[in-house]
């Protein structure tokens, strides 16, 4: 009987250890997914290219104001366009990141939210819910087409001259920051940035 009790206690200890190890492994898988990110799929081809100025579109914000992207450049300000949808979980997770970046870079940058589809009410409710009232929020299919927004969340950075610095699917904070890195380093796409970074790391290693 003693042997059984001892073996039982030992087994429980091992089972706890194993289940915690499985938990840690699944957690690492999740972290790895975030790190490796969808490499190749970031910048979808087509649409405005880096260095080009987006076409003039007449856009209207949710609160009825007209918005022209070239007006920002005329004032010497850059624009971060963040394409989102109220039903996209990743967009929701990234909202605090983009609003924080907008705050940090407010000296030269304005943040504009953009979306297509859905009802106005849905977007208006989302703006209130997420407290995005401080930023222009545009619903426009044309704008999405101009930047070839295929997947959400998607972001595009325009410099102070109104030219596109970089754009792409952004799934993590690192992706959004890479748009700004692109501006600093003068590389045109997130893909290029990532592969340049990978090369750097290889060289360093």
């Amino acid at each position, binding site marked *: 009987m003693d042997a059984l*009790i001892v073996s*039982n*206690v030992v087994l*429980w*200890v091992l*089972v*706890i250890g194993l*289940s*915690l190890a*499985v*938990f840690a*492994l*699944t*957690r690492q*898988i*999740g972290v790895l*997914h975030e790190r490796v990110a*969808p490499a190749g*799929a970031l910048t979808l081809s087509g649409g405005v290219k880096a260095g080009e100025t987006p076409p003039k579109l007449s856009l209207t914000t949710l609160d009825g104001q007209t918005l022209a992207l070239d007006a920002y450049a005329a004032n010497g300000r850059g624009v971060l366009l963040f394409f989102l949808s*109220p*039903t*996209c*979980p*990743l967009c*929701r*997770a990234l909202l605090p990141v983009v609003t924080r970046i907008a705050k940090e870079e407010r000296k030269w940058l304005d943040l504009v939210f953009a979306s297509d589809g859905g009802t106005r009410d849905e977007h208006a*409710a*989302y703006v209130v*819910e*997420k407290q995005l009232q401080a930023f222009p929020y545009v619903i426009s299919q044309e704008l999405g087409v101009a930047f070839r927004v295929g997947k959400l969340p998607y972001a595009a950075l325009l410099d102070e001259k109104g030219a596109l610095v970089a754009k792409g699917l952004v799934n993590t904070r690192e992706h959004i920051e890479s748009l700004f890195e692109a501006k600093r380093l003068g590389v045109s796409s997130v893909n290029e940035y990532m592969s340049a970074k990978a090369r750097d790391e290889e060289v360093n290693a």
Partner: protein
Amino acid sequence: MTIDPVIATIVQYAYAWLFLAAALHKLADIADFRSVLATYRVLPEASVAAAAWLVVAVEIAIGVGLLLQQRAAYAGGAAVLVGYAAVIGLNLVRGRRFIDCGCGGATQPLSTGLVVRNAMLALVVTIGLVPVASRAIGWIDIVSIVAGVVVAGALYAAANQLLAARARLEEWV
């Protein structure tokens, strides 16, 4: 048919933990939970805010009820879990896969895996409705109960992370 007290107690504490943790998670960011509930589109928009509080209250009631060994809490817990599985299933059928599940942990879209998960959780909690056999409880039983609850919790969390990871992989194809 009766069930051994060790198994009954593991179920009791594991589910009390599940429901109370779920309620706390929702309470921590009730506005977020409200928007998740709204995107499920199963309730009229005007009632979503009240419903969010109601869900939290029900989960707390079930969690506390389980700790107090109330039969109704087991039945209620099973009903709530079946209800979650049903609304997830309904939105899958509607094709609204890409809404946040609101399952706690990392954000993940809906999947059949989540429906299966909730159905299995609902099935297991009904163990609590079976009468408990009476026998003397020794220290080894206490070890089994504590270890069982810890392992159940770790495996549940691991399963959730695997579901979230699988959904992310699918999104990238």
